[in-house]
């Protein structure tokens, strides 16, 4: 076994040439034949070894079929055929492994972005250790040109960081104290001290890698079908070859049938396209979890978007405060304390507005109860308050006065989200919050329509007016407002029944159920939220939502590529079969066509790596 595939290819190729030269020179046909036999053995013996190992386990693989054909060819004194078959088979195998590596190259490139060194401060000493040896809480130092080895928070310094490993975006972003940085990203200029929050296998990057690795071998439906098909095709041809030999006594014909019995191009057609497609996506910061997802993504007819955090930036800011019968600052303070535990984007806006205006908030709500889709019931400074939407206030029996209602309506018509604050008796005030629409959202909706998506809907827990304002601004077909998480699931079922396969696009904070129940779940901004990354079928790592159009386009290109491959492979298999039966194709030419068809399929898949928008 000591030789490599390449060495065997070269040696057996040279022996074939020598044999031909000898024959031409008419030295001695016997010597020429000896060289030819030598070539067949150099390339053939490893094949036979594998065949014998397989037969021990009662498995008839392609190597057994080729071995049989070679032995038959030698028996027929067709030394050239014997040498050619083994040579072509070995050469094909070598070229296939080289080209196959190309289809898998993007994923390998991702693996190479794994950090390999970490510089930490321990006992006041700077030391270099392996990234997996860093423990949570360690202070890590990263210098220009180095990869950040952990997920963490910047504690000191300032740097431009290239986050391509995570987001696929290579324009460096500025990071300073308090910012989150990710493992696998590279400091282009500057210097950072980072507190390690997540290390080793827990980092976002390590988890993406693991998911991409798993994804590449999750089989597409087409693939499963083709594998079943070939499981029957091969034995069928073998039996056919045996029968043919019994009836016609034409050994040459039967042997040739054996060589083409394994539909290599057909079986490889799907996995190569899928791996190239997934690799391309991964390089652009899009995680597509497997072949089946790849097939489904291109067939999506309805796209349902979550509003907050998906179509908008989810960095809502307080744009107005209106109080009824109390100081505005006091109202803001109560709201901020009440929301202090909440992770909701609206809550964060209120808290940061209060911090900006009134300084640090040292208090927390005494009790706090989340009412999904409505808001919060809290106790602040010994008093009960409601902070949330209209539904919350009305369902708890508090009246909204005419004048208040008018103000709220006005604000909502301007596309503002209003948070109403009341005590148990009356409305105390209203805080208006606006969340800017993502810069690329409008472009995305237009792109999606161009891609032939039948229906684009928006699902939101927000009120009707805000929803309408944003839907209109972006050109969204339909919007459903004031939904609870479980309502989103219901709406999804409805639109999917009406218009075809539906995908839910969300950031995963409160739409995990919808992401999981949709025909396809697509999460954006995956670098931040764990739940979304786990539940979704497709994850856009960055916040650039316009990549969704790219992902859908890529999925279609991949499926198209797959179909071209399958079509081509079937035609070749059929032509070979006909050619063999018509005695136009023999051992060597059969093997040549077989190997060429496999190579062409792989090369076709490589084209996918170049796919862009």
């Amino acid at each position, binding site marked *: 076994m000591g030789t490599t595939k390449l060495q065997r290819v070269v040696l057996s190729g040279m022996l074939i040439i020598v044999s031909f030269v000898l024959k031409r020179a008419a030295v001695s046909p016997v010597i020429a034949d000896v060289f030819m036999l030598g070539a067949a053995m150099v390339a053939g013996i490893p094949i036979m070894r594998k065949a014998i190992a397989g037969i021990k*386990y*009662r*498995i008839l693989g*392609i190597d057994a079929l080729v071995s049989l054909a070679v032995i038959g060819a030698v028996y027929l004194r067709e030394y050239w055929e014997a040498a050619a078959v083994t040579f072509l088979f070995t050469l094909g195998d070598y070229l*296939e492994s080289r080209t196959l590596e190309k289809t898998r190259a993007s994923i390998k490139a991702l693996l190479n972005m794994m950090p390999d060194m970490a510089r930490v401060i321990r006992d006041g000493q700077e030391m270099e250790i392996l990234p997996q040896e860093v423990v949570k809480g360690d202070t890590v130092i990263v210098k220009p040109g180095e990869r950040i080895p952990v997920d963490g928070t910047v504690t000191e310094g300032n740097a431009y960081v290239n986050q391509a490993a995570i987001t696929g975006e290579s324009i460096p972003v500025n990071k300073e104290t308090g910012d989150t940085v990710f493992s696998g990203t590279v400091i282009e200029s500057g210097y950072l001290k980072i507190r390690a929050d997540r290390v080793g296998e827990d980092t976002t990057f390590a988890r993406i890698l693991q998911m991409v690795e798993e994804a*590449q071998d999750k089989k597409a439906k087409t693939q499963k079908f083709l594998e079943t098909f070939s499981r029957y095709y091969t034995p069928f041809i073998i039996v056919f070859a045996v029968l043919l030999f019994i009836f016609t006594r034409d050994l040459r014909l039967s042997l040739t049938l054996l060589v083409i019995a*394994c539909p290599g191009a057909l*079986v*490889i057609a799907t*996995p190569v396209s899928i791996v190239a497609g997934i690799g391309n996506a991964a390089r652009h910061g899009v995680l597509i979890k497997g072949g089946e997802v790849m097939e489904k993504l291109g067939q999506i007819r309805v796209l349902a978007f979550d509003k907050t955090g998906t179509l908008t930036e989810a960095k809502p800011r307080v744009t107005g405060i209106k109080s009824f019968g109390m100081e505005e600052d006091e109202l803001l303070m109560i709201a901020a304390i009440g929301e202090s535990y909440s992770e909701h984007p609206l809550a964060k806006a209120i808290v940061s507005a209060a911090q900006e205006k009134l300084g640090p908030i040292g208090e927390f709500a005494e009790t706090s109860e989340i009412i999904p889709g409505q808001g919060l019931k809290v106790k602040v400074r010994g008093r009960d308050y409601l902070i949330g939407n209209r539904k919350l206030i009305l369902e708890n029996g508090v009246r909204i006065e005419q004048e208040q209602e008018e103000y709220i309506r006005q604000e909502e018509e301007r596309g503002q989200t209003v948070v109403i604050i009341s005590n148990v008796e009356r409305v105390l005030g209203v805080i208006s919050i606006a969340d800017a629409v993502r810069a690329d959202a409008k472009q995305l909706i237009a792109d999606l329509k161009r891609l032939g998506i039948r229906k684009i809907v928006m699902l939101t827990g927000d009120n009707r007016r805000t929803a309408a304002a944003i839907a209109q601004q972006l050109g969204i077909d339909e919007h459903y407002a004031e939904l609870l998480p479980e309502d989103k699931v219901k709406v999804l079922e409805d639109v999917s029944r009406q218009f075809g396969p539906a995908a839910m696009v969300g950031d995963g904070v409160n739409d995990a159920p919808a992401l999981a129940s949709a025909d396809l779940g697509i999460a954006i901004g995956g670098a931040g939220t764990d739940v979304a990354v786990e539940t979704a079928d497709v994850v856009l790592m960055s916040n650039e939502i316009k990549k969704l159009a790219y992902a859908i386009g890529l999925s279609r290109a991949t499926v198209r590529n797959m179909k071209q491959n399958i079509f081509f492979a079937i035609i070749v298999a059929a032509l070979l079969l006909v050619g063999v039966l018509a005695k136009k194709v023999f051992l060597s030419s059969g093997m040549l066509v077989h190997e060429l068809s496999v190579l062409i399929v792989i090369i076709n898949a490589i084209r996918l790596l170049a796919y862009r928008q």
Partner: protein
Amino acid sequence: MTTKNYQLETLTCPSCMAKIENALRRTKGVESVEVLFNSSRVKVTFDELVVSSDDVKRVIEGLGYKVLGEK
């Protein structure tokens, strides 16, 4: 039951997947086998009391596929 991943040299023909799968399935103590074509890996779940990881490796290598690593 133990599950191990064996990294092989680049797999080229999907037909070798069936070979490895069948061979390991017929090995005593092996519970389940999955050959991952694109990552050229074999995922095997087996009963360590009946069959060792070295035995599993020997079966794969006996078929002519070098095992580059395991984890």
